[in-house]
Structures are given as structure tokens and as C-alpha cells.
């Protein structure tokens, strides 16, 4: 896909200003560019875009030369700007050593894009998300026009069914079928909801799409409204995503002004209005019934299903709720046809999936790959392998509801069923990669700490069971694990799973169950030998000073809060093991890497 249709006569420069770009210093780069360009009177038009996915190279600056070829600079700093302006915009020679991607030459980062197939992310990073004109120029709202002018509701639903699209929010329920239920439900008033709560810590797919291509979500929701017979919708977005909220609000205003939203859309009798609702910081509100309670202004507690939202949802009215990524697929499917989407992927999982790569991966960022690709391909080919050349240990998929897939299962194919077989879940698309420094018991403890805090408290097993599990895991990581703890954990896992009402409790044991299944020996080492094989759990480490490296600078002795380190200036220091409280201060403070934790 070419990034621009009209060939500009001048250089067009685009700064990536998604949340990640801004966090990496994108605004400063933008101002530096503006200043330098103004001063040099360079023939340049400066704009901005959302996240293209190469977060590991942020801040990113795209340059489209007068001939229309694209060059992308990575890790741009205000200091680098002057040379780019001078050599590239004025001297017409790109600064090759800072390029990460270019249409005219092969670069090492090309493998980041080689296996990707971009449907959901079709516009992200390639247009200004705040410009409806640019969205329109990239086929925006054409699917909506096609649907409401040439198709009836049944035909729209059939197209979605044919595509085989399954919900991208985690559970993977067929989207077409869901729409069919809401369509058939009786009622004058119906609602469409977009779930943009994205509570899974370590995942940011929905944020990038909301920030990078807000109109495509609007368009997906509008098409859904038309298909199920709804005239009102809500976009529920996490409080932590202020930029997404601002861009959605602007998109709503712009779309209304051009007649794509509001009364009698495009002159038809289909009307639709949209509201943005900001979440207030509760993970459980990602669960659909809790989310609706939250929109109604209540405490966000899940309720028993049935009745399903399709029959009784928001304010008791039939409601269709889908995830951000699910909606973002809809316009593409309507324009290209269900069969084109179904042609990608595996037998039961069609199309593509967006993943957020994070953790110890070389190329952290956002990628969209066809279903059926293996975990190994995603991590090693797209993601460039493990940071600092360390060893790949496991990948956490599905967040607090998911599990850790060990390196040995890296050839697992990515589709809903195969991932579920490993004990993890596809989830919404967070992939946190772990290397050999990660302690798996600690990872399980980390997730239980999260679910225990986020349990809404309605079900006893979820509220108390997660707390007990957390206590057991904490004591294991502190070297106080007992014989029988593993069995106790397994018992609790089972009970919390079956006795919880919503997905939060039902899946909370998954991180524990998967680590027990694949890394049981690590649990045993902690409990029986009081040893942490990954050298992570501080309480189980012995701190020793390497006499060959110690320079006798005395800093460790000074920072030790319990005076366990003794020694004279310029002489080798020593740790008194009987006094040491394993706080690790000496390791962090030593400038000579002389304190060894084993």
C-alpha cells in the first residue's frame, strides 16, 4: 500500500505521535524539526501520525520525498534533526545510517514487516488520525456507504458470518453470530458498545488503533448499528488513554459534520449517535456485563449470564458489544468480502491478529500477523528474538487470564484452539516475552497479586481464594514454602475456577496452572532447596563480594541498612550472611559489578 495518493511536490515529513512516540520524545523532535525547517526554509510539509508499530525505534520520522518514496528514520533525537534536514531535505541524500525502513533499499528492520499482514492496522502510522479527509482518501466510510445504500441488514450479517471473524476481546465468539442474536432480539431501542477497556497489563493493541485510526472504529460500530437495528452507541475507553479519548471525540465531531454520523446518515433513514465513556480504573469493567453496569453509573460488578447482552444489555435493552479490534476489521471485510478474510488463517481461526510485543523482546511493538503463524515466527522473525541475545524462556499470553507458554512449545500455531490447548489463552493479544532471568513462581505471584486486587468481591471463591493463593505464592518466593503448598495451590485453582461467576475468577488460576505445568521444578526448588533457579527472588539469594572485582570503595558498606558489610577503604569487603536481609541495595549500588547474587 502506498502511503500517499497525491504525489507531493515537496518533502512531506510525518512524526509518529502515538502515546509511545510522545513518551519517547516525539514532541521534542517535532518542535526541533519545525524550527530547523523554518530556519532553513526547507521545502517541507510537516504533519503527524499514529503508531506504525515500531515502538522499539521511537521516535520515528517518516519522510516522503517529492518522488513519493518513503523513508523512515528511527530513534530520532532533536540533535539528529539538523543533519537530516540538511542532507536529506536540502541535499537530497538520505542519511542512510539512521534509516530503519526505505522503499528503495533493503534494511535489517524489513523483517519486522515481512510476515505481517495489515488489516486492522491498515491505516495506523500511515495517515493523520485527526484528519477525516485522509481517512476518506484511504477508502474511509466507503464500507458504511456500501452497507447502508446497497445491502440490507441480513446481507451485512451474512458477510460477517462468512468471514469467520471471531471476537478479538479474548473469548473468540463468532462476531456474525453475535450480531445475528442482537438483530433478532425484539425491541425498539438497541445499543452498540465498543469495549476499549483494555485492562490486560502489558497489552496496547486497542490503544494504538483508537489513537491511530479512530474513524475505522466508528465505521465498524456504525455498520453494526445498521445490521442490528440500533441507533445509539457507546465507546468505553480506559481512563489511562487520554489521547485516545481526545481523538475519538474529534472523530465523532468530524464524522457528524460530514453526515456519517447523526440523523439520516448519507440521506438514508438510518440514524446513529455515539458517546464516549471514560472508564474509571477497574480491570473487571472489561467484562461485558460489568462494563454495562459501569456505563449505567453503577459499581462495575459482573452479573450472571444469561440473559446475554444481545437480549438484555445496557439498560435492559438488546445490546451488541465487541472489542476495538473486532470493529476495526469490519470495514475491510465489507469492502473485500467475507471470503477474502476467510482465506487467511486456519480452519477455525480466520483473518489476522494484532499482538503487542513487550518484555524481553528485541523489537517491542505492535504487529499484525495472519492466524496460523507460529509463536516462534512472531518472536524470532517479526520480533527479532530476545533482547541482548539472552535465552528465550517463555511467553506470557492472555495476561492475568492467560498463561506462560514455554520455549519448548514455540512451534505452537497461533489460533484460538491451539493456544488454549497449552493452557494459556489467545486473549486480547498481549505477548510478554520472558528470558532466562524471569522466575516463573514470581510471575505467577505477580498475576495473582493483580487479580486479587482487581477481584470485585462478589464471589467468595474469587475474593478469598485469590488472596489465599497469593499468600501461598508469596511465601514460596520468600523461601518459606512448605511441603504440600503445590497441592494446596492446585486445589485452590480448581475451586476458584469452578466457583466464580465471571471470567476474572474463572481464569485467574491460569497463570499458576501453566507455570505449575511447565515449570514445576522451579516451584520445587523454591520450596525444598530454598533456591530460586533464575536468581530472581531476593530472599533466596546469597550475596557475596568478588575479591577480584572489589576496589574497596566502601559504598556497599555505607548503603547496607543493617551493617552486614564490613571492610576498610581500598580493601576487599565481605558480607556477614547472618546479618544480611537480602535487600539487594549493595548489588544496585556497586559500580564495579563486584557483588554477586547467587
Amino acid at each position, binding site marked *: 500500500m502506498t502511503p500517499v495518493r497525491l504525489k507531493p511536490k515537496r518533502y512531506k515529513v510525518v512524526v509518529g505521535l502515538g502515546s509511545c512516540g510522545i513518551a519517547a520524545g516525539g514532541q521534542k523532535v517535532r518542535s526541533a524539526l519545525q524550527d530547523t525547517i523554518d530556519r532553513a526554509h526547507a521545502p517541507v510539509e510537516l504533519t503527524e501520525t499514529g503508531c506504525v508499530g515500531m515502538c522499539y525505534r521511537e521516535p520515528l520520522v517518516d519522510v516522503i520525498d517529492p518522488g513519493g518514496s518513503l523513508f523512515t528514520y528511527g530513534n530520532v533525537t532533536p540533535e539528529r534533526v539538523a543533519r537530516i534536514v540538511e542532507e536529506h531535505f536540502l541535499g537530497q541524500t538520505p542519511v542512510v545510517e539512521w534509516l530503519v525502513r526505505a522503499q528503495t533499499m533493503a534494511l535489517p528492520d524489513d523483517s519486522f514487516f515481512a510476515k505481517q499482514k495489515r488489516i486492522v492496522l491498515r491505516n495506523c502510522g500511515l495517515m493523520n488520525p485527526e484528519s477525516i479527509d485522509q481517512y476518506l482518501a484511504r477508502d474511509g466510510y466507503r464500507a458504511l456507504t456500501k452497507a447502508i445504500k446497497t445491502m440490507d441488514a441480513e446481507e451485512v450479517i451474512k458477510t460477517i458470518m462468512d468471514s469467520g471473524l471471531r471476537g478479538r476481546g479474548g473469548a473468540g465468539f463468532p462476531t456474525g453470530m453475535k450480531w445475528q442474536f442482537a438483530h433478532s432480539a425484539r425491541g425498539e431501542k438497541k445499543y452498540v458498545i465498543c469495549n476499549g477497556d483494555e485492562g490486560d*497489563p502489558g497489552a496496547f493493541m486497542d490503544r494504538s488503533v483508537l489513537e491511530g485510526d479512530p474513524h475505522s472504529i466508528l465505521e465498524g460500530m456504525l455498520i453494526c448499528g445498521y445490521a442490528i437495528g440500533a441507533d445509539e452507541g457507546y465507546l468505553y475507553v480506559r481512563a489511562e488513554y487520554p489521547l485516545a479519548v481526545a481523538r475519538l471525540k474529534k472523530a465523532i465531531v468530524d464524522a457528524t459534520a460530514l453526515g456519517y454520523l447523526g440523523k439520516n446518515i448519507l440521506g438514508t433513514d438510518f440514524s446513529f449517535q455515539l458517546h464516549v465513556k471514560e472508564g474509571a480504573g477497574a480491570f473487571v469493567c472489561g467484562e461485558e456485563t460489568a462494563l454495562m453496569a459501569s456505563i449505567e*453509573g453503577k459499581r462495575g460488578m459482573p452479573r450472571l449470564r444469561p440473559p446475554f447482552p444481545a437480549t438484555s444489555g445496557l439498560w435492559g435493552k438488546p445490546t451488541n458489544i465487541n472489542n476495538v479490534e473486532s470493529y476495526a476489521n469490519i470495514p475491510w471485510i465489507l469492502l473485500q468480502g467475507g471470503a477474502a478474510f476467510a482465506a487467511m488463517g486456519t480452519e477455525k481461526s480466520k483473518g489476522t491478529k494484532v499482538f503487542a510485543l*513487550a518484555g524481553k523482546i528485541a523489537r*517491542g511493538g505492535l504487529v499484525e500477523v495472519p492466524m496460523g503463524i507460529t509463536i516462534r515466527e512472531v518472536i524470532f522473525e517479526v520480533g527479532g528474538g530476545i533482547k541482548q541475545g539472552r535465552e528465550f524462556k517463555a511467553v506470557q499470553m492472555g495476561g492475568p487470564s492467560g498463561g506462560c507458554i514455554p520455549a519448548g512449545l514455540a512451534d505452537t500455531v497461533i489460533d484460538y484452539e491451539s493456544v488454549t490447548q497449552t493452557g494459556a489463552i489467545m486473549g486480547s493479544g498481549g505477548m510478554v516475552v520472558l528470558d532466562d532471568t524471569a522466575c516463573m513462581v514470581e510471575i505467577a505471584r505477580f498475576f495473582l497479586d493483580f487479580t486479587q486486587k482487581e477481584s470485585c468481591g462478589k464471589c467468595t471463591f474469587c475474593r478469598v481464594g485469590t488472596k489465599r493463593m497469593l499468600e501461598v505464592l508469596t511465601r514460596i518466593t520468600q523461601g518459606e514454602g512448605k511441603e504440600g503448598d503445590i497441592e494446596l495451590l492446585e486445589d485452590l485453582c480448581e475451586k476458584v475456577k469452578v466457583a466464580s461467576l465471571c471470567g476474572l475468577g474463572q481464569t485467574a488460576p491460569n497463570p499458576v496452572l501453566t507455570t505449575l505445568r511447565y515449570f514445576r521444578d522451579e516451584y520445587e526448588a523454591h520450596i525444598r532447596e530454598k533456591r530460586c533457579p533464575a536468581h530472581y527472588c531476593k530472599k533466596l539469594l546469597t550475596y557475596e563480594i568478588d575479591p577480584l572485582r572489589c576496589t574497596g570503595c566502601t559504598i556497599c558498606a555505607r548503603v547496607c541498612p543493617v551493617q552486614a558489610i564490613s571492610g576498610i577503604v581500598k580493601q576487599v569487603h565481605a558480607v556477614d550472611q547472618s546479618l544480611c536481609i537480602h535487600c539487594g541495595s549493595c548489588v544496585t549500588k556497586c559500580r564495579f559489578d563486584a557483588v554477586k547474587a547467587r
Partner: protein
Amino acid sequence: MSKSSKTRLPRQGDPPLGDQARVERVLARYSGRIGAVIPVLQEVQETLGYLPIWAIQAIALGLEIPASQVYGVVTFYAQFRLKPIGKHLCKVCHGTACHVSGATEVSGAILEQLRVLEGATTEDGKFTVESVACLGCCSLAPVIMIDQETFGRLSPDKARKIVKEF
């Protein structure tokens, strides 16, 4: 807890008149709208910095629902605060990606630099430090956010420097 009882805040019964008027203005904009509790609370907290008890009572009155129900909503969601915060809010991410990339060390450094406990406010009232579950910039982990500004790829030393110079 403050040691001296003489330096207590003004009694909660008599809120500043300007603040009262601000709460009334928010309420006026939402009157008659269903499901308005959360947006009203968000706006009131935005203007006052927190949710004093008198404001909760005023909201209950304005929206014609029991104060207990409003209070129930306030205590359910992590975003709402019943106590004032410092001039700047520093959110330290403890999401999965940040956790495995050293968030514990980063937050330790920040708390040490500011001499404050997590969830509390510094003595000079400049910073409140809070832990959050994910700021959505996971590929730049570990991440913190001060007010609306996000800082990524931190090390304990970089984090210390940022709060020191902020």
C-alpha cells in the same frame, strides 16, 4: 497522620463557596441525564483534585440518588480519591511488561528520591506517587507518567533524575 491537631484542614462541613459553585455547575450540565454519576464524579475530581465528602453529598442531592450509592461508586473505582493529592501525580507502571523490565527498582528509586511511601504525598505537597497497572506504552517499559507526560525506557537513575528535576 499529621502529628499536631492544630494544623487540621478546615472542617468538612463548610466547603469553600467557590468550590461549591463549581460542583453545582458540573451538576447543572448533567441534570436529567441517566447514568451520569461517573462522569460527574470525574469532572468534580478534575476541578477539585479529589472528592470531599461534602461534594459527594451535593452530587447525591443533585442527581437524586442516595449518598451511599455515590460513595459506593467512589470506593469501587481506582480513579476516585477521597483525599487531596500533591501538586503533581506520579503514576508508576507495574504492568506485566514494566514488571519484568525492572519496575520495582524504578519505583524504589522514585520513592527513595522523594522520601515518600507509595500512595502517599510528599511533605512539601509537590508529589503524590501511585502505582498503576499499565499505561499502554509497554514497549518502552519501564514507564512512569507525571501528570499528562509519559517517560519511558527508564532506569532507576533516570527516574530519580526526572522527579528531581520536574
